[in-house]
């Protein structure tokens, strides 16, 4: 059953249970405003949710009750018992409907109207007479006939978060206790029996830790569950046709985070449909397909989840936005003249701006993009727009993966260890790097990296500890401040990368302004999580926004950008040093070697439960002996992704756009000089095309397999999944439908060899018929059937038909 619906039902039932007492108490003391409010809120919530879920009966009932109650709330009058029992009857009916919805039965629409009428009548009478007991109408409390209905298949319980956190803490305690026990056991030498028992315990604890962590995590695609329904309803309402595409991520994020993103996302989708996508007539006139396209996708990028909503509507009219912003007083004429195109577009996020020409029922009621942005930012996310007037709008939301577990870097300053969220760090360099020059002017530190100047501060100075003397270069971290302007935080050393469970620190610690929380790594030494934005503030770094003449600098930067681009340098498995455009690399990941698979000449890498194509395999002699993981570049062009195994990643460098094209071959686009060395530049296009070609070939493959006997269990449960897995399109044969040219018919050879192949195809299957037999041995020399568990032969036969078809 629809998860949203079951959640609604569960919530409603829970509230109903809680409210029964409230109603009774209200009856005892009708003047109790708090209880009245509580009741009102319940009906209000039900009405709101069921309008969304399209449950008209719930809506009618709750609407009527809400109406009556709101009258009492505003009128200050005291509800009489008759009205209250009428309200109770409505609540009972809602409860029955819940059970019906849950079990999938339909409850006869007997007397909802009667109930509502009774309620209204009670209310009217009470209002007219303000006397008790006059309107004791027949309430016909709809009896408990629904109570015995079947329980739903999948049951859930809702738990307070505190309980789960306690559980998580308990498990962490167990892990620490286990580690201690392990140390003690090792100290006592080998005791096979004890060790085996300990191993078992250890495995149990690890399993338990995983399970508990999962209780907080949820698949990202739950975000999209409500979308198809909403798009359907809205497009009907607005008379638009919309082709919706949803690409769910295979990543999981914190439940709390999912809840926080649902609302802004819903708002964005509504906006897209309402203001973005045009009516079919307008689209025809603009030379676009009648159906507007709306594409939602979610994927993981580093430590963030990126959620994109892309439509091909009219985009945002920047001039209209500017005009609105001026009218609303959000900006002044002078400001506008200084703004870049993107900044003008971002005015959409200013309070009180809507691009709707008129206020519609769907959106444009003043709850604008400013609220959306505020909601996203509240959870540490970022929202950005890319608009192409007349061609569409792309909105991307980036949110941190989870509120509680983050990838962090452990660093050392003044002999103390600290952690910093990896997402705050843009780049790490050693101060011995020739690309960096540090200057001190009047006590202020400035670091110049590749021609860009940054404010710089030593962490030791901020926290007031002496700088530890140690050999080797210091590490400079380019980190993001709260305003988004990066600065350099210098530390003794960046030690390693760890997944950290972040917990809030005590107020007295947070008051220092430089910490974001604390964490307990596996070594049992508590560590503080640094707040990059806070440090900049405490250190009073001048992180001023770009000034007026920054426009020129920006153009400069743009020029430079045109002449060069950042590229990731890496060593191929075969030893060559190559570079690839950094923007193509989504992230770098270590993948266990055994997850790199080659089949049918194509190489794929298993990531989670998906297979991602890879341009080349990993041969055993290419990885160091004993190595269990291979470094992979995850490359993405927005639609297609691939996994590129490499020997090692070297560095990020600015690579000139101009290169020596004479060296072009295969996936290599040409040669460039980086620091006096020749580096081959990987041609992203050729790379994608190579993999895409392989995929396209596969896409062309689906031959329709028509399975003759749809009732046969084996056909249904074993054969069909096998064929689908192999990429074939599986159909069940209907007697009245002749097989199409090119279809392959699969027939199970029975005892009598009943290959009553229809439609004139010879019984021997000269045409595309594959006969399967249940016995391993053929029935005789003339038996051309295939043993049904001989997968190779079956797929072989299918692909030979396939080949024939293609030649034909």
């Amino acid at each position, binding site marked *: 059953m629809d998860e949203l619906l079951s959640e609604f039902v569960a919530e409603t039932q829970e509230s109903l249970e809680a409210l029964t007492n409230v109603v009774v108490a209200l009856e005892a003391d009708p003047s109790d405003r708090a209880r009245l409010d509580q009741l009102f809120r319940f009906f209000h919530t039900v009405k709101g949710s069921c309008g969304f879920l399209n449950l008209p009966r719930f809506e009618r009932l709750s609407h009527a009750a809400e109406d009556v109650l709101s009258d009492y709330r505003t009128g200050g009058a005291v509800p009489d018992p008759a009205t209250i029992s009428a309200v109770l009857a409505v609540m009972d009916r809602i409860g029955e409907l819940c059970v019906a919805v849950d079990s999938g039965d339909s409850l006869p629409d007997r007397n909802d109207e009667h109930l509502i009428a009774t309620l209204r009548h009670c209310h009217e009478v009470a209002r007219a007479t303000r006397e008790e007991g006059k309107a004791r109408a027949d309430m016909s409390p709809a009896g408990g006939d629904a109570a015995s209905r079947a329980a739903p298949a999948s049951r859930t319980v809702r738990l307070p978060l505190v309980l789960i956190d306690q559980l998580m*803490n*308990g498990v*962490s*305690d167990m*892990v*620490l*206790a286990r580690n201690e026990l392990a140390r003690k056991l090792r100290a006592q030498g080998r005791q096979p029996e004890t060790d085996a028992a300990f191993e078992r315990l250890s495995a149990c604890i690890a399993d338990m830790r995983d399970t508990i962590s999962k209780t907080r995590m949820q698949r990202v695609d739950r975000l999209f569950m409500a979308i198809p329904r909403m798009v359907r309803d809205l497009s009907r309402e607005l008379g638009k046709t919309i082709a919706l595409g949803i690409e769910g991520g295979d990543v999981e994020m914190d439940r709390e985070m999912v809840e926080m993103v649902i609302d802004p996302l819903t708002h964005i989708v509504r906006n897209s449909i309402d203001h973005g996508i045009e009516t079919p007539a307008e689209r025809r006139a603009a030379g676009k397909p009648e159906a507007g396209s709306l594409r939602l996708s979610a994927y993981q990028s580093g430590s963030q989840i990126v959620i994109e909503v892309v439509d091909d509507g009219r985009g945002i009219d920047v001039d209209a936005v500017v005009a609105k912003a001026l009218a609303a007083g959000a900006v002044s004429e002078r400001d506008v003249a200084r703004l870049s195109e993107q900044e003008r577009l971002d005015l959409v996020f200013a309070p009180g701006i809507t691009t709707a020409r008129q206020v519609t029922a769907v959106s444009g009621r003043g709850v604008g993009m400013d609220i959306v942005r505020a909601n996203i930012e509240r959870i540490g996310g970022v929202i950005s727009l890319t608009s192409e007037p007349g061609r569409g709008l792309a909105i991307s939301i980036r949110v941190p993966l989870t509120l509680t577990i983050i990838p962090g870097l452990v660093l050392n300053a*003044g002999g*103390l260890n600290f952690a910093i969220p990896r997402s705050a760090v843009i780049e790490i360099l050693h101060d011995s790097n020739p690309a960096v020059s540090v200057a001190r002017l009047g006590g202020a530190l400035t670091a110049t990296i590749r021609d860009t100047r940054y404010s710089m501060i030593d962490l030791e100075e*901020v*926290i*007031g*500890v002496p700088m530890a003397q140690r050999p080797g270069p210091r590490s400079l971290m380019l980190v993001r401040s709260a305003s988004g302007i990066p600065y350099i935080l210098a530390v003794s050393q960046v030690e390693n990368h760890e997944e950290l469970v972040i*917990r*809030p*620190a*005590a*107020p*007295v*610690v947070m*008051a*220092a302004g*430089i*910490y974001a929380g*604390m964490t*307990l790594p596996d070594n*049992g*030494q*508590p*560590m*503080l999580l640094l707040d990059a934005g806070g440090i900049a503030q*405490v250190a009073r770094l001048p992180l001023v926004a770009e000034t007026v003449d920054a426009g020129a600098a920006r153009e400069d930067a743009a020029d430079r950008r045109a002449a060069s681009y950042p590229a990731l340098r890496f060593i191929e498995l075969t030893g060559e040093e190559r570079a690839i455009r950094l923007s193509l690399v989504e992230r770098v990941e270590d993948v266990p070697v055994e997850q790199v698979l080659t089949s049918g000449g194509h190489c794929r890498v298993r990531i989670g439960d998906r297979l991602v194509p890879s341009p080349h395999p990993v041969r055993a002699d290419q990885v160091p002996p004993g190595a269990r993981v291979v470094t992979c570049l995850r490359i993405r062009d927005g639609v297609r992704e691939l996994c590129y195994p490499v020997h090692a990643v070297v560095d990020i460098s600015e690579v000139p756009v101009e290169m020596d094209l004479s060296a072009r071959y295969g996936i290599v686009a040409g040669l460039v000089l980086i620091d006096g060395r020749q580096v081959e530049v990987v041609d992203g296009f050729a790379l994608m095309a190579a993999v895409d070609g392989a995929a396209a070939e596969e896409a062309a493959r689906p031959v329709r397999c028509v399975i003759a006997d749809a009732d046969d269990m084996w056909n249904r449960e074993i054969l069909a999944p096998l064929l689908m897995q192999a990429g074939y399109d599986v159909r069940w044969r209907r007697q009245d439908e002749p097989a199409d040219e090119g279809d392959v018919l699969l027939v199970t050879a029975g005892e009598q060899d009943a290959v009553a192949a229809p439609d004139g195809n010879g019984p021997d299957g000269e045409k595309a018929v594959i006969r399967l037999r249940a016995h391993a041995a053929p029935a005789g020399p003339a038996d051309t059937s295939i043993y049904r568990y001989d997968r190779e032969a079956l797929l072989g036969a299918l692909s030979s038909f396939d080949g024939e078809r293609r030649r034909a």
Partner: protein
Amino acid sequence: MSTLYLFARIAGTAVALRTDEIEAVVRLKEVSPVPGVPPHVAGLSALRSRVLTVVDAATLIMGAASAAPPWPDTGRYAVMCDVGGHSYGLLVDGVDDIAAIATPPLPLCGRVDRAWEPHAQGVVENDGRSHFILSIARLLDQCGSAQAA
């Protein structure tokens, strides 16, 4: 009705802490220092999977002037408690006794040291000795505000 008190010493002064505010008394072997915070925050300490914010009661009450003694190898006693959802360890000199006291708190008598005045809520007698009654929650509340000042 009697109240159960934990009798301890802070900066050489006998104090009584209500046991319903206390989770446990632990001996902390080491703390990880927290730079950039007021001196009475001694650091963080892990107790199994919990992280305690360790507050030195003597420094908090007497002020930064009373230099904290070097951390002894044997560890220091800390009263563990939970205030506002955060776990704290309140460092004390030592713990003497736990006893139920039937008599209600006595008012303060004599000229109380300025440092103790805001914290002492009364006096209880145990074993013939007087103890200041302290509220841990209030003490730690002041720990935040003392820092703001």
